[in-house]
Protein backbone atom coordinates (compact mmCIF):
# COMPACT_ATOMS: atom_id res chain seq x y z
CA UNK A 1 0.00 0.00 0.00
CA UNK A 2 2.81 2.39 0.86
CA UNK A 3 4.36 2.00 -2.60
CA UNK A 4 1.05 2.76 -4.31
CA UNK A 5 0.65 5.91 -2.22
CA UNK A 6 4.11 7.16 -3.17
CA UNK A 7 3.40 6.58 -6.87
CA UNK A 8 0.17 8.49 -6.62
CA UNK A 9 1.96 11.49 -5.16
CA UNK A 10 4.67 11.39 -7.81
CA UNK A 11 2.33 11.04 -10.78
CA UNK A 12 -0.45 13.32 -9.59
CA UNK A 13 -0.78 16.76 -11.15
CA UNK A 14 -2.33 17.98 -7.93
CA UNK A 15 0.19 18.32 -5.10
CA UNK A 16 -0.93 17.74 -1.52
CA UNK A 17 -2.49 20.82 0.07
CA UNK A 18 -1.16 22.24 3.34
CA UNK A 19 -2.98 24.89 5.33
CA UNK A 20 -1.58 28.43 5.66
CA UNK A 21 -2.37 30.15 8.97
CA UNK A 22 -1.59 33.68 10.11
CA UNK A 23 -2.53 34.14 13.76
CA UNK A 24 -1.25 37.74 14.05
CA UNK A 25 0.33 39.30 17.15
CA UNK A 26 -0.56 37.53 20.40
CA UNK A 27 0.56 37.15 23.99
CA UNK A 28 3.38 34.64 24.44
CA UNK A 29 1.14 32.28 26.46
CA UNK A 30 -1.40 32.22 23.63
CA UNK A 31 1.28 31.48 21.06
CA UNK A 32 2.74 28.67 23.19
CA UNK A 33 -0.73 27.20 23.77
CA UNK A 34 -1.33 27.28 20.02
CA UNK A 35 1.98 25.44 19.54
CA UNK A 36 0.78 22.69 21.86
CA UNK A 37 -2.75 22.58 20.40
CA UNK A 38 -1.69 22.49 16.75
CA UNK A 39 0.94 19.81 17.41
CA UNK A 40 -1.57 17.65 19.31
CA UNK A 41 -4.15 18.18 16.58
CA UNK A 42 -1.63 17.07 13.95
CA UNK A 43 -0.64 14.06 16.04
CA UNK A 44 -4.24 12.92 16.41
CA UNK A 45 -4.89 13.68 12.74
CA UNK A 46 -7.67 16.20 13.32
CA UNK A 47 -5.73 18.96 11.55
CA UNK A 48 -3.82 19.09 8.26
CA UNK A 49 -0.13 19.79 7.71
CA UNK A 50 0.17 23.52 8.34
CA UNK A 51 2.48 26.49 7.91
CA UNK A 52 1.77 29.19 10.48
CA UNK A 53 3.03 32.77 10.83
CA UNK A 54 2.80 34.60 14.14
CA UNK A 55 3.87 37.66 16.09
CA UNK A 56 4.58 38.41 19.75
CA UNK A 57 4.00 41.06 22.33
CA UNK A 58 7.33 41.73 24.16
CA UNK A 59 8.36 38.45 25.75
CA UNK A 60 11.32 36.36 26.88
CA UNK A 61 10.91 32.74 25.79
CA UNK A 62 12.79 29.99 27.58
CA UNK A 63 13.70 26.73 25.88
CA UNK A 64 11.62 23.79 27.08
CA UNK A 65 14.18 22.52 29.60
CA UNK A 66 15.66 25.85 30.67
CA UNK A 67 15.39 27.59 34.00
CA UNK A 68 14.32 31.26 34.15
CA UNK A 69 16.83 32.03 36.93
CA UNK A 70 19.72 30.78 34.79
CA UNK A 71 18.77 32.40 31.52
CA UNK A 72 16.98 35.71 32.17
CA UNK A 73 17.30 38.99 34.04
CA UNK A 74 13.92 38.56 35.72
CA UNK A 75 14.01 41.96 37.48
CA UNK A 76 14.54 43.73 34.17
CA UNK A 77 11.75 41.72 32.54
CA UNK A 78 9.31 42.58 35.34
CA UNK A 79 10.20 46.28 35.30
CA UNK A 80 9.93 46.61 31.53
CA UNK A 81 6.78 44.73 30.64
CA UNK A 82 8.57 41.72 29.20
CA UNK A 83 6.47 38.60 29.77
CA UNK A 84 8.34 35.39 30.61
CA UNK A 85 7.14 32.19 28.98
CA UNK A 86 8.38 28.68 28.24
CA UNK A 87 8.41 27.20 24.74
CA UNK A 88 7.50 23.60 23.99
CA UNK A 89 10.59 23.48 21.74
CA UNK A 90 14.19 22.97 22.78
CA UNK A 91 17.12 25.35 22.46
CA UNK A 92 18.06 28.61 24.14
CA UNK A 93 16.19 31.60 25.55
CA UNK A 94 15.22 34.35 23.10
CA UNK A 95 13.68 37.81 23.25
CA UNK A 96 10.65 38.39 21.01
CA UNK A 97 8.59 41.44 20.15
CA UNK A 98 6.94 43.04 17.13
CA UNK A 99 10.34 43.25 15.41
CA UNK A 100 10.37 39.51 14.76
CA UNK A 101 8.18 37.34 12.59
CA UNK A 102 7.63 33.76 13.75
CA UNK A 103 7.23 30.96 11.22
CA UNK A 104 6.21 27.38 11.99
CA UNK A 105 5.55 24.06 10.30
CA UNK A 106 3.26 21.35 11.67
CA UNK A 107 3.75 18.18 9.70
CA UNK A 108 3.55 14.44 9.88
CA UNK A 109 7.11 13.13 9.87
CA UNK A 110 6.21 10.68 7.11
CA UNK A 111 5.41 13.59 4.75
CA UNK A 112 9.07 14.64 4.94
CA UNK A 113 10.63 11.29 4.04
CA UNK A 114 13.40 11.71 6.63
CA UNK A 115 13.90 9.85 9.89
CA UNK A 116 16.63 11.69 11.77
CA UNK A 117 15.83 14.93 13.55
CA UNK A 118 19.01 16.66 12.40
CA UNK A 119 18.19 15.90 8.75
CA UNK A 120 14.65 17.22 9.19
CA UNK A 121 15.97 20.45 10.74
CA UNK A 122 18.41 20.91 7.86
CA UNK A 123 15.76 20.38 5.20
CA UNK A 124 13.33 22.86 6.76
CA UNK A 125 16.05 25.47 7.45
CA UNK A 126 17.42 25.16 3.92
CA UNK A 127 13.92 25.71 2.52
CA UNK A 128 13.41 28.78 4.73
CA UNK A 129 16.84 30.11 3.70
CA UNK A 130 15.81 29.77 0.05
CA UNK A 131 12.76 31.92 0.78
CA UNK A 132 14.91 34.53 2.49
CA UNK A 133 17.25 34.57 -0.51
CA UNK A 134 14.25 35.54 -2.60
CA UNK A 135 13.83 38.58 -0.36
CA UNK A 136 17.32 39.62 -1.43
CA UNK A 137 19.58 38.39 1.39
CA UNK A 138 22.30 35.75 1.14
CA UNK A 139 20.76 33.45 3.76
CA UNK A 140 22.27 30.00 4.39
CA UNK A 141 21.62 27.12 6.77
CA UNK A 142 24.26 26.82 9.48
CA UNK A 143 24.29 23.59 11.52
CA UNK A 144 22.77 22.80 13.84
CA UNK A 145 19.76 25.08 13.67
CA UNK A 146 20.52 28.58 12.45
CA UNK A 147 19.90 30.51 9.28
CA UNK A 148 22.67 33.03 8.85
CA UNK A 149 23.96 35.69 6.49
CA UNK A 150 27.75 35.80 6.25
CA UNK A 151 28.21 34.46 9.76
CA UNK A 152 25.46 36.53 11.40
CA UNK A 153 22.28 34.86 12.61
CA UNK A 154 19.08 36.03 10.89
CA UNK A 155 16.73 33.28 12.04
CA UNK A 156 17.05 30.88 14.98
CA UNK A 157 15.01 27.70 14.98
CA UNK A 158 13.92 24.74 17.11
CA UNK A 159 11.45 21.88 17.09
CA UNK A 160 9.12 19.70 19.10
CA UNK A 161 7.80 16.24 18.33
CA UNK A 162 4.94 14.11 19.55
CA UNK A 163 4.84 10.65 18.02
CA UNK A 164 4.83 11.09 14.24
CA UNK A 165 3.84 14.77 14.40
CA UNK A 166 6.49 17.49 14.28
CA UNK A 167 6.41 21.20 14.94
CA UNK A 168 9.36 23.23 13.72
CA UNK A 169 9.58 26.95 14.37
CA UNK A 170 11.86 29.83 13.52
CA UNK A 171 12.10 33.52 14.28
CA UNK A 172 12.98 35.97 11.53
CA UNK A 173 14.59 39.19 12.73
CA UNK A 174 12.98 42.08 10.89
CA UNK A 175 14.75 44.59 13.10
CA UNK A 176 17.07 43.95 16.02
CA UNK A 177 17.04 45.84 19.34
CA UNK A 178 20.44 44.65 20.53
CA UNK A 179 20.37 46.54 23.85
CA UNK A 180 17.04 45.06 24.81
CA UNK A 181 18.23 41.55 23.98
CA UNK A 182 21.37 42.00 26.09
CA UNK A 183 19.30 43.27 29.03
CA UNK A 184 16.74 40.47 28.92
CA UNK A 185 19.03 37.49 28.32
CA UNK A 186 21.86 36.40 30.61
CA UNK A 187 24.29 35.75 27.76
CA UNK A 188 28.04 35.63 28.33
CA UNK A 189 28.75 39.00 26.74
CA UNK A 190 31.21 41.60 27.94
CA UNK A 191 30.14 43.75 30.85
CA UNK A 192 30.96 46.99 29.04
CA UNK A 193 27.81 47.95 27.19
CA UNK A 194 29.36 49.41 24.03
CA UNK A 195 31.63 46.40 23.51
CA UNK A 196 28.76 44.02 24.18
CA UNK A 197 26.58 45.80 21.63
CA UNK A 198 29.31 45.76 18.98
CA UNK A 199 29.97 42.14 19.76
CA UNK A 200 26.28 41.22 19.48
CA UNK A 201 26.04 43.03 16.15
CA UNK A 202 28.86 40.81 14.89
CA UNK A 203 26.70 37.78 15.56
CA UNK A 204 23.14 38.77 14.80
CA UNK A 205 21.67 40.63 11.85
CA UNK A 206 18.21 41.62 10.62
CA UNK A 207 16.38 42.42 7.41
CA UNK A 208 16.59 46.12 8.35
CA UNK A 209 20.40 45.89 8.37
CA UNK A 210 20.63 43.82 5.20
CA UNK A 211 18.04 45.54 2.99
CA UNK A 212 17.36 49.19 2.16
CA UNK A 213 13.67 48.68 2.89
CA UNK A 214 12.17 45.95 5.07
CA UNK A 215 9.42 44.29 3.01
CA UNK A 216 5.84 44.39 4.28
CA UNK A 217 4.87 41.54 6.58
CA UNK A 218 2.42 40.18 4.02
CA UNK A 219 5.12 40.12 1.32
CA UNK A 220 7.55 38.26 3.59
CA UNK A 221 4.86 35.70 4.44
CA UNK A 222 4.03 35.19 0.76
CA UNK A 223 7.68 34.64 -0.19
CA UNK A 224 8.61 32.42 2.76
CA UNK A 225 5.49 30.26 2.57
CA UNK A 226 5.94 29.74 -1.18
CA UNK A 227 9.56 28.64 -0.69
CA UNK A 228 8.59 26.18 2.06
CA UNK A 229 5.72 24.81 -0.04
CA UNK A 230 8.03 24.37 -3.06
CA UNK A 231 10.63 22.55 -0.98
CA UNK A 232 8.05 20.00 0.16
CA UNK A 233 6.18 19.75 -3.17
CA UNK A 234 2.87 20.98 -1.78
CA UNK A 235 0.43 23.80 -2.45
CA UNK A 236 -1.00 26.07 0.24
CA UNK A 237 -4.51 27.13 1.06
CA UNK A 238 -5.26 29.87 3.58
CA UNK A 239 -7.31 28.53 6.49
CA UNK A 240 -8.45 29.04 10.07
CA UNK A 241 -8.22 27.04 13.29
CA UNK A 242 -10.81 24.26 13.37
CA UNK A 243 -13.12 23.46 16.30
CA UNK A 244 -10.92 20.61 17.55
CA UNK A 245 -7.89 22.89 17.63
CA UNK A 246 -9.78 25.61 19.46
CA UNK A 247 -10.79 23.07 22.13
CA UNK A 248 -7.19 21.86 22.49
CA UNK A 249 -5.98 25.47 22.58
CA UNK A 250 -8.28 26.42 25.43
CA UNK A 251 -7.14 23.41 27.47
CA UNK A 252 -3.47 24.11 26.72
CA UNK A 253 -3.80 27.79 27.64
CA UNK A 254 -5.04 26.89 31.13
CA UNK A 255 -1.84 24.94 31.77
CA UNK A 256 0.61 27.22 29.96
CA UNK A 257 -0.65 30.62 31.11
CA UNK A 258 0.37 29.74 34.66
CA UNK A 259 3.51 30.18 36.82
CA UNK A 260 3.80 26.41 37.36
CA UNK A 261 4.48 26.00 33.63
CA UNK A 262 6.82 28.98 33.32
CA UNK A 263 8.84 28.43 36.50
CA UNK A 264 8.38 24.65 36.89
CA UNK A 265 11.96 24.00 35.80
CA UNK A 266 14.20 25.56 38.41
CA UNK A 267 17.97 25.23 38.42
CA UNK A 268 20.28 27.43 40.49
CA UNK A 269 22.15 30.13 38.61
CA UNK A 270 25.31 28.87 40.33
CA UNK A 271 25.07 25.67 38.26
CA UNK A 272 25.68 27.71 35.12
CA UNK A 273 28.58 30.08 35.84
CA UNK A 274 29.89 32.55 33.27
CA UNK A 275 33.69 32.62 33.20
CA UNK A 276 36.21 34.54 31.16
CA UNK A 277 39.87 34.67 30.11
CA UNK A 278 41.98 36.92 27.92
CA UNK A 279 45.39 36.53 26.21
CA UNK A 280 47.62 38.80 24.12
CA UNK A 281 48.97 37.39 20.86
CA UNK A 282 51.10 38.86 18.05
CA UNK A 283 47.89 39.52 16.11
CA UNK A 284 46.04 41.21 18.97
CA UNK A 285 44.06 40.37 22.11
CA UNK A 286 41.60 37.48 22.22
CA UNK A 287 39.03 37.17 24.96
CA UNK A 288 36.58 34.35 25.62
CA UNK A 289 33.42 34.31 27.75
CA UNK A 290 31.93 30.93 28.51
CA UNK A 291 28.53 29.99 29.93
CA UNK A 292 29.29 26.61 31.51
CA UNK A 293 26.96 23.82 32.61
CA UNK A 294 28.54 22.60 35.81
CA UNK A 295 26.49 19.42 36.45
CA UNK A 296 26.86 18.22 32.86
CA UNK A 297 30.41 19.58 32.33
CA UNK A 298 29.38 21.09 28.99
CA UNK A 299 30.07 24.39 27.26
CA UNK A 300 26.64 25.90 26.81
CA UNK A 301 27.70 29.08 25.04
CA UNK A 302 31.10 30.42 24.02
CA UNK A 303 31.57 34.04 23.03
CA UNK A 304 34.88 35.30 21.54
CA UNK A 305 35.83 38.95 21.32
CA UNK A 306 38.89 41.16 21.08
CA UNK A 307 40.88 42.76 18.29
CA UNK A 308 42.74 39.76 16.87
CA UNK A 309 43.07 39.49 13.11
CA UNK A 310 41.46 36.28 11.86
CA UNK A 311 40.40 35.70 8.28
CA UNK A 312 37.75 34.80 7.26
CA UNK A 313 36.16 37.11 9.80
CA UNK A 314 33.34 34.70 10.59
CA UNK A 315 35.73 31.97 11.77
CA UNK A 316 35.31 32.59 15.50
CA UNK A 317 31.51 32.88 15.20
CA UNK A 318 31.42 29.53 13.41
CA UNK A 319 33.64 28.04 16.12
CA UNK A 320 31.22 29.38 18.78
CA UNK A 321 28.42 27.57 16.99
CA UNK A 322 30.48 24.33 16.84
CA UNK A 323 31.32 24.50 20.54
CA UNK A 324 27.73 24.82 21.73
CA UNK A 325 26.80 21.98 24.15
CA UNK A 326 30.19 20.26 23.76
CA UNK A 327 31.54 18.24 26.71
CA UNK A 328 34.57 20.01 28.16
CA UNK A 329 36.60 16.82 27.71
CA UNK A 330 35.89 16.91 23.97
CA UNK A 331 36.58 20.63 23.56
CA UNK A 332 40.25 20.25 22.47
CA UNK A 333 39.52 17.72 19.72
CA UNK A 334 36.50 19.76 18.59
CA UNK A 335 38.67 22.88 18.19
CA UNK A 336 41.42 20.93 16.40
CA UNK A 337 38.90 19.30 14.02
CA UNK A 338 37.27 22.66 13.31
CA UNK A 339 40.54 24.25 12.20
CA UNK A 340 41.67 21.14 10.31
CA UNK A 341 38.57 21.45 8.10
CA UNK A 342 39.21 24.98 6.81
CA UNK A 343 41.77 27.50 5.62
CA UNK A 344 42.21 30.18 8.28
CA UNK A 345 44.69 33.03 8.40
CA UNK A 346 45.13 33.82 12.11
CA UNK A 347 48.46 35.69 12.45
CA UNK A 348 50.21 33.40 14.88
CA UNK A 349 47.18 32.17 16.85
CA UNK A 350 47.07 28.38 16.78
CA UNK A 351 44.18 26.03 17.57
CA UNK A 352 46.15 25.04 20.67
CA UNK A 353 46.16 28.69 21.82
CA UNK A 354 42.36 28.74 21.62
CA UNK A 355 42.07 25.46 23.52
CA UNK A 356 44.32 26.85 26.27
CA UNK A 357 42.35 30.11 26.40
CA UNK A 358 39.08 28.22 27.01
CA UNK A 359 40.82 26.03 29.60
CA UNK A 360 42.16 29.17 31.30
CA UNK A 361 38.62 30.56 31.53
CA UNK A 362 37.48 27.37 33.23
CA UNK A 363 40.46 27.00 35.56
CA UNK A 364 38.56 28.04 38.69
CA UNK A 365 35.40 26.10 37.88
CA UNK A 366 35.04 23.19 40.31
CA UNK A 367 35.26 19.66 38.96
CA UNK A 368 32.31 17.51 40.05
Amino acid sequence: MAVVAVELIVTSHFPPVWRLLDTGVRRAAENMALNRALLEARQSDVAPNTIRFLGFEPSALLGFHQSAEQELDLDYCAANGVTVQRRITGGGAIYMDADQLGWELYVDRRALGLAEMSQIAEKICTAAATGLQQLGVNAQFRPRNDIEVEGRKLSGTGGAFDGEALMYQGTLLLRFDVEKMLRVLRIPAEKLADKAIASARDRVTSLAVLLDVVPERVAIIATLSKALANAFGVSLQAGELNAAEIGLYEAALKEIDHPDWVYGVSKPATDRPTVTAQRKFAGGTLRVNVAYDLPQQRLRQVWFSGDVFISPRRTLMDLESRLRDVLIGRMPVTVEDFFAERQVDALGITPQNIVELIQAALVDVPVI
Partner: protein
Amino acid sequence: MECNGCEFRAELYYDDQYQIWVRQEEDGSLTVGMTDISQTVAGKILHVRVRRPGTIRPVGKPVATIESGKWAGPVPNIFDCVIEEANLDVLEDPNLLNIEPYEAWIARVRPTESVAQALSVLVTGDAAKQGYCERTRREDIHCERGAR
Protein backbone atom coordinates in the same frame (compact mmCIF):
# COMPACT_ATOMS: atom_id res chain seq x y z
CA MET B 1 20.85 -9.22 17.64
CA GLU B 2 20.91 -6.24 15.28
CA CYS B 3 19.03 -4.78 12.30
CA ASN B 4 20.85 -2.08 10.32
CA GLY B 5 23.20 -1.86 13.30
CA CYS B 6 20.29 -1.23 15.70
CA GLU B 7 20.45 -3.50 18.74
CA PHE B 8 17.31 -5.48 19.58
CA ARG B 9 16.81 -7.33 22.86
CA ALA B 10 14.28 -10.15 22.64
CA GLU B 11 13.55 -10.27 26.37
CA LEU B 12 12.11 -6.71 26.46
CA TYR B 13 8.66 -5.37 25.57
CA TYR B 14 8.14 -2.55 23.05
CA ASP B 15 5.49 -0.08 21.80
CA ASP B 16 4.41 -0.74 18.23
CA GLN B 17 6.66 2.03 16.88
CA TYR B 18 9.69 0.73 18.86
CA GLN B 19 10.27 4.09 20.53
CA ILE B 20 10.45 2.70 24.06
CA TRP B 21 11.39 -0.56 25.73
CA VAL B 22 9.77 -1.91 28.91
CA ARG B 23 11.20 -4.48 31.34
CA GLN B 24 9.18 -6.38 33.91
CA GLU B 25 10.69 -6.25 37.41
CA GLU B 26 10.17 -8.80 40.19
CA ASP B 27 8.51 -6.26 42.50
CA GLY B 28 5.67 -5.62 40.05
CA SER B 29 7.08 -2.39 38.65
CA LEU B 30 8.06 -1.77 35.04
CA THR B 31 11.27 -0.13 33.85
CA VAL B 32 11.04 2.17 30.82
CA GLY B 33 13.82 3.27 28.45
CA MET B 34 14.51 4.43 24.89
CA THR B 35 15.37 1.99 22.10
CA ASP B 36 18.53 2.13 20.02
CA ILE B 37 16.30 3.33 17.14
CA SER B 38 14.97 6.23 19.24
CA GLN B 39 18.34 7.41 20.48
CA THR B 40 19.70 7.34 16.92
CA VAL B 41 16.76 9.28 15.50
CA ALA B 42 17.01 11.83 18.31
CA GLY B 43 20.77 12.45 18.07
CA LYS B 44 22.80 13.85 20.97
CA ILE B 45 20.47 14.01 23.98
CA LEU B 46 21.14 17.02 26.20
CA HIS B 47 18.22 17.11 28.63
CA VAL B 48 15.92 14.59 30.25
CA ARG B 49 13.13 15.45 32.63
CA VAL B 50 11.13 12.78 34.45
CA ARG B 51 7.85 13.57 36.19
CA ARG B 52 7.98 13.53 39.97
CA PRO B 53 7.62 10.18 41.80
CA GLY B 54 3.98 9.64 42.69
CA THR B 55 2.71 11.43 39.57
CA ILE B 56 -0.08 9.61 37.76
CA ARG B 57 0.54 9.37 34.03
CA PRO B 58 -2.43 8.38 31.88
CA VAL B 59 -1.94 7.02 28.36
CA GLY B 60 -0.65 9.78 26.09
CA LYS B 61 0.83 11.89 28.89
CA PRO B 62 4.59 11.43 28.84
CA VAL B 63 6.59 9.71 31.55
CA ALA B 64 9.56 11.89 30.60
CA THR B 65 10.65 14.53 28.09
CA ILE B 66 13.93 14.68 26.22
CA GLU B 67 15.79 17.33 24.26
CA SER B 68 18.33 16.74 21.52
CA GLY B 69 19.82 19.44 19.38
CA LYS B 70 16.96 21.89 19.60
CA TRP B 71 14.20 19.28 19.42
CA ALA B 72 12.09 18.61 22.50
CA GLY B 73 9.49 15.90 22.91
CA PRO B 74 7.97 13.18 25.05
CA VAL B 75 9.12 9.69 25.90
CA PRO B 76 5.68 8.29 25.10
CA ASN B 77 3.50 6.50 27.59
CA ILE B 78 1.12 3.83 26.35
CA PHE B 79 -0.38 2.47 29.58
CA ASP B 80 -1.73 4.20 32.70
CA CYS B 81 0.93 4.29 35.41
CA VAL B 82 2.39 6.04 38.42
CA ILE B 83 6.01 7.23 38.37
CA GLU B 84 8.03 5.50 41.10
CA GLU B 85 11.60 6.52 40.36
CA ALA B 86 13.78 8.36 37.86
CA ASN B 87 17.26 7.17 36.93
CA LEU B 88 19.41 9.85 38.56
CA ASP B 89 22.45 8.86 36.48
CA VAL B 90 20.52 9.67 33.31
CA LEU B 91 19.15 12.93 34.71
CA GLU B 92 22.72 14.00 35.46
CA ASP B 93 24.17 12.75 32.18
CA PRO B 94 21.42 12.39 29.54
CA ASN B 95 24.11 11.45 27.04
CA LEU B 96 24.09 7.94 28.60
CA LEU B 97 20.94 7.32 26.52
CA ASN B 98 23.09 7.62 23.39
CA ILE B 99 25.83 5.40 24.75
CA GLU B 100 23.98 2.47 26.32
CA PRO B 101 20.23 2.82 25.64
CA TYR B 102 19.32 -0.54 27.15
CA GLU B 103 21.29 -0.06 30.38
CA ALA B 104 20.42 3.63 30.79
CA TRP B 105 16.81 3.21 31.86
CA ILE B 106 14.75 6.40 32.28
CA ALA B 107 12.03 5.64 34.83
CA ARG B 108 10.49 2.91 36.95
CA VAL B 109 6.70 3.01 36.89
CA ARG B 110 3.87 1.03 38.44
CA PRO B 111 0.95 0.27 36.14
CA THR B 112 -2.43 1.47 37.42
CA GLU B 113 -4.06 -1.75 36.25
CA SER B 114 -2.22 -5.09 36.43
CA VAL B 115 1.22 -5.70 34.94
CA ALA B 116 -0.38 -8.20 32.56
CA GLN B 117 -2.80 -5.52 31.38
CA ALA B 118 0.07 -3.07 30.71
CA LEU B 119 2.17 -5.65 28.90
CA SER B 120 -0.81 -6.66 26.76
CA VAL B 121 -0.56 -3.41 24.76
CA LEU B 122 3.15 -4.02 24.06
CA VAL B 123 4.93 -6.40 21.71
CA THR B 124 7.77 -8.79 22.51
CA GLY B 125 9.71 -11.79 21.19
CA ASP B 126 9.68 -12.73 17.49
CA ALA B 127 6.81 -10.39 16.61
CA ALA B 128 8.71 -7.47 18.14
CA LYS B 129 11.92 -8.46 16.38
CA GLN B 130 10.15 -8.49 13.04
CA GLY B 131 8.47 -5.09 13.61
CA TYR B 132 11.66 -3.54 14.94
CA CYS B 133 13.67 -4.64 11.90
CA GLU B 134 10.90 -3.55 9.55
CA ARG B 135 11.02 -0.04 10.96
CA THR B 136 14.79 0.24 10.50
CA ARG B 137 14.42 -0.89 6.88
CA ARG B 138 11.31 1.15 6.08
CA GLU B 139 12.83 4.39 7.37
CA ASP B 140 16.41 3.46 6.43
CA ILE B 141 17.59 3.94 10.00
CA HIS B 142 21.20 2.89 10.71
CA CYS B 143 21.98 3.07 14.40
CA GLU B 144 24.99 4.82 15.80
CA ARG B 145 25.99 4.89 19.43
CA GLY B 146 27.58 7.55 21.53
CA ALA B 147 26.72 10.88 19.87
CA ARG B 148 28.46 13.26 22.26
